[in-house]
């Protein structure tokens, strides 16, 4: 397990880098705008694509030569899953139009849950109060806009 991961990680990173390099190169070659003299907008992307490709190749070489030391601790998928849920809800809160306060409440409670808390009601309450306070400070004191939902329109 440990030995396999040592070369698996650099090989995966190497392949990913080569894909990124290819995407940059493809994107740069589709630029049509040019300049009369000096450097066009496609040159630096091409140079960076080359740099990324070299790093990708170096990773592959490292991978096939035995790899490097990597962390192989077991992950806690449930814990990560809760944070991912909180963040995905945050993203979805924009098209759903639930507003800033509810998004913050869910994110707070989900993260606390991920770190092992079981008192859901308390955490929801803390998240809600934090959300309301931040919303009021931002919109009233700092005059910055935050996404509005039904709750936010209620407080005005």
């Amino acid at each position, binding site marked *: 397990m440990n030995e396999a991961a040592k070369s698996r990680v650099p090989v995966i990173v190497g392949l990913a880098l080569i894909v990124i390099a290819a995407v940059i190169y493809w994107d740069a070659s589709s630029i049509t705008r040019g300049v009369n003299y000096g450097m066009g907008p*496609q040159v630096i992307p091409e140079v960076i694509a080359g740099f990324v490709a070299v790093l990708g190749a170096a990773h592959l070489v490292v991978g096939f030569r035995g790899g*490097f030391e990597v962390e192989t601790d077991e992950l*806690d998928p449930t814990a990560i899953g809760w*944070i991912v849920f909180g963040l995905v809800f945050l*993203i979805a809160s924009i098209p759903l139009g639930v507003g800033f306060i509810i998004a913050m409440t869910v*994110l707070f409670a989900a993260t606390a849950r991920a770190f092992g808390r079981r008192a859901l009601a308390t955490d929801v309450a803390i998240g809600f109060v934090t959300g309301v306070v931040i919303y009021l400070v931002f919109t009233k004191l700092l005059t*910055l806009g935050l996404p509005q939902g039904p709750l936010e329109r209620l407080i005005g």
Partner: protein
Amino acid sequence: MDVLAALGHGFLVALEPSKLFFALIGVFLGTAVGVLPGIGPALTVALLLPVTFKLDPTGSIIMFAGIYYGGMYGGSTTAILINAPGESASLATALEGNKMAKAGRGGPALATAAIGSFVAGTFATIGLAFLAPWLVEVAVKFGPWDYFALMVLAFVTVSATFGDSPLRGLTSLALGLVLGLVGIDKLTGAARMSFGVPELLDGVEITTLAVGLFAVGEALFVVSKRHKGDDVIQPIKGSLWMTREDWRRSWGPWLRGTLFGFPIGALPAGGAEVPTFLSYSTEKRLCKHPEEWGKGAIEGVAGPEAANNASAAGTLVPLLTLGLPTSATAAIMLAGFQQYGLNPGPLLFAEKPDLVWGLIASLFIANAMLLIINLPLVGLWVRLLAIPQPWLYAGILVFAAMGTMAAKASVVELSMLFAFGFLGFLMRRYDYPVAPMVVGLILGPMAEQQLRRALQISLGDPVVLIENPISATLLAIAAVALLAPFAMQGLNKFKANED
């Protein structure tokens, strides 16, 4: 004498009540985030950027600097009391500092760290005040080719020279450079790496990247290995006052630490880790009590802490005079300047002397404030460490989301935050440094502009880069710094084969 007059004028600005207030908020926030594990000064400034968008620029920048200095003080408290350095700059402090705390000498350890930070911070800020105008005069003569070469040097030193693995550092830098490509090319208006997504035409926000990497990435990383043991907080034992013996043994390391920290911070050499470890090993060699090392030698706290703070002040030299950030925090502070349309560099000294000298003067004030709030109030900060971990990280994520929501509440922006968070998690897990990526994102587009400007002036002839002595020298140093670690690796391998 010009410097003294300018500095005097700066003090008039910095002593205005509103500026003092900003400095005080900055040092308080900075100390708090320095103490709390998981968040550092770079993240805090990144979170505050959207919040301070409509506030007074001078005040906000004074606050950011206070956060930077405060983070350095606060980090040492955590390093000494729980052996969990808040940021890599405190790693060296933790070695002897935690041993001192375990041996019941936590009080003197905290005291020598705070007073050493004050001494080093003050001397280094004096260095900044006198070095900056001189460097500005040099920088006025810099052409675009020189700036380009300087940035290339910064890329190399930030990512390659001092990391454990140059390959991983360079990969992190490269990812930052790739993100820097996203958006509309400023010189021709061509869209690059935007894939037809309108939100991407503005480019990648540095705050979104920093908050994703530092806050979301850190939370995912910590939660992924939650089943590991908890940290033990050492109670503060022993008087906070240092004995005559402690003073006698501390002042040398403070001054030597300053001498390591300031120049290394001021050169585009990146990071506070190098000077702190240099100071640590020097003090270990010079110490007259070698038997105490490993059991809690006060020199091992005094030196690295001084080096740490001096390098923070040193980092401000290239940032203010050249607009060149050499640490993650400096990169975000540069973004802070830019959000007010200010560009650090020689022109800023000429156009906004109030701001520049007010900032430098406020650093002296912030240092004095930090000494006061860190010594008598250290008990208060220690209590922050008792915040339950679930609430701490839930709070960090809420603040992270808040900043992004206030700046740009769109599905694309929040998805980027999420993606950068996941990337940050993977990079932490597999030991890729994240700071080069942040520096790459902000410096990459600047370097490209300077290069293209240079080639426009030379009508496309690349020889311009090596026929100017300054740019040629800088590029040569960069090449050596890039190749040296690989060459040394080769040498090591050679030696290993011989055995």
